[in-house]
């Protein structure tokens, strides 16, 4: 488990987190390569099924990065995203997967440092949680 490098999917809103990632790049601020960014037109566009499918297909962690409260380009997409993330967390708990694998974060387009900081924090958290339990389940079955 020592060499475990998590795969993390980050759904990033075009108007904030995606631009913040860009900003991090322009400022030469490094962030972990574990984070795979998917640009979305608004964090509110991220549906429950997108997060579920990411996990089902092997992501070790998923986060949705939206605008700061009150700053959503589409008024309240970020608040809707937060509710969906909570819904996924509850569902994961029901099926015995750590809800901490999914998270909602907020930032503005100018927060390049914050983007990198969040990427480090979440990568670190998922690294401690270990690999997605689906993989262990399937590997154990294969070995048996």
């Amino acid at each position, binding site marked *: 488990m020592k060499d475990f490098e998590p795969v993390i999917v980050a759904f990033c809103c075009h108007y904030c987190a995606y631009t913040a990632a860009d900003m991090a790049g322009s400022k030469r601020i490094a962030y972990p390569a574990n984070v795979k960014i998917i640009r979305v037109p608004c964090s509110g566009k991220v549906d*429950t099924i997108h997060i*579920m499918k990411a996990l089902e297909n092997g992501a070790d962690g998923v986060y949705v990065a939206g605008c700061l409260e009150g700053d959503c380009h589409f008024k309240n997409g970020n608040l809707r995203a937060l509710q969906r993330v909570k819904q996924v967390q509850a569902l994961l708990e*029901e*099926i*015995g*997967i750590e809800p901490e694998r999914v998270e909602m974060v907020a930032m503005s387009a100018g927060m390049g440092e914050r983007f990198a900081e969040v990427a480090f924090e979440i990568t670190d958290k998922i690294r401690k949680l270990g690999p997605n339990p689906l993989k*262990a*389940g399937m590997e154990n*079955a294969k070995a048996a």
Partner: protein
Amino acid sequence: MITAERKPMEEIIESVRPYNRILLVGCNECVTVCAAGGRKEVGILSSALQMAFMQEGKTLDIKELTLERQCDPEYVEELVTVIDQADAVLSMACGCGVQEVARRYKDKPVYPALNTLFMGAAERQGVWAERCQGCGDCILGLTGGICPVARCSKRLLNGPCGGSTAGKCEISQDVDCVWQLIWDRMKALGIENRYEEVMTAKDWRTSRDGGPRKIIREDLV
């Protein structure tokens, strides 16, 4: 609309545990509107089930299908091409849909993924409340368009009772006293004199008390 909620995952997981090939069937009608068993919820449940079993090292063969209406035989007939590829059916329709699938495909076990709750209306996005109990003898014309059968905790026809305080029912501060609502509405309509008319005992034989009900429309049969 008929409202429903997903059953706890544990119960659903246990119901499909003996099977490998699951036909997960949603319904495009009421349960889609109340976000319990439409195409979207079918996808989410399918993914959640897959993940639950993958942790145990098992992958399910889940086929997702959402019918236009699961309570009508002509739509349930659409399953005929895929039913043989499944060991069991998991239905995300209301109880009517589950039963229609079970009636049509007699050799296939059918399990409900939802708990069907009530006939209701949307109060706002994501909030549904009970509005009708299907008593079979509508009295809404006498009560200002607000139903005491479905919405009074005691189904009083001549309310309110002593448990009505500041417009709320004694069972919960979140429940309006329906007789307060009826009175307010009657006043707004200028028909408060009707409130004085005592309603006689209701004949409940038109409701469930008369046994399971059926409608036969000779002009349509």
